[in-house]
């Protein structure tokens, strides 16, 4: 069964303390991996799409990387405003069973203290 697992469930960092969030996935074929940020009471905000192993994307203090089995979201010198839940989602796709749905993990709750 397709599965997306995120770790850790929660992470507390001091301002400026860099770290990484992990997203491991098992799908029969990957069409795309998506990272989102979700603030309390809000919908997920799109951050990155990664399509193939070895691909990297950067935006401000965030950098996403992708291997054949997992993705990492690296946060460099985080600030309190980076506090949020970070969600990873995969879209399965191969010649036998491509799909439009996103399969989400349960997220990592990040708290950055000043």
């Amino acid at each position, binding site marked *: 069964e397709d599965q997306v697992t995120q770790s850790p469930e929660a992470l507390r960092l001091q301002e400026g303390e860099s770290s990484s969030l992990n997203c491991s996935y098992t799908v029969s074929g990957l069409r*795309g991996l998506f990272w989102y940020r979700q603030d309390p009471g*809000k919908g*997920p905000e*799109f951050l990155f799409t990664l399509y193939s192993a070895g691909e990297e994307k950067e935006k401000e203090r965030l950098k996403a990387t992708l291997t054949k089995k997992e993705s990492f979201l690296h946060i460099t010198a985080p600030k309190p405003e980076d506090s949020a839940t970070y*969600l990873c989602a995969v879209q399965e*796709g191969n010649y036998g069973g491509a799909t439009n*749905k*996103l399969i989400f993990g349960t997220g990592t709750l990040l708290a950055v203290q000043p």
Partner: protein
Amino acid sequence: DAGVTQSPTHLIKTRGQQVTLRCSPKSGHDTVSWYQQALGQGPQFIFQYYEEEERQRGNFPDRFSGHQFPNYSSELNVNALLLGDSALYLCASSLGSTGWVSNQPQHFGDGTRLSIL
């Protein structure tokens, strides 16, 4: 540039009632997907609409139905509400493709918080 807008923001219903949630996609998008997000969980795919037709459906009962209008806006209808239907309902829009599958990123609205008493 207006993003995805959903209405209402909050709704309280009782068991057995019916509810309709509405979504306007981001400008330029033609595909709408609906997700259910329980507290502390990731969103779960309900279904996707493209060109006014249901393109794909997740593991949700027939009590969940939808519609897409010619202007690409969409509605989610839930009949015979159960306590377990209490959740945040999210609408996401994206740019579709003439092929059956599109891997363009989906952009989400802020959702409708549905509470069932």
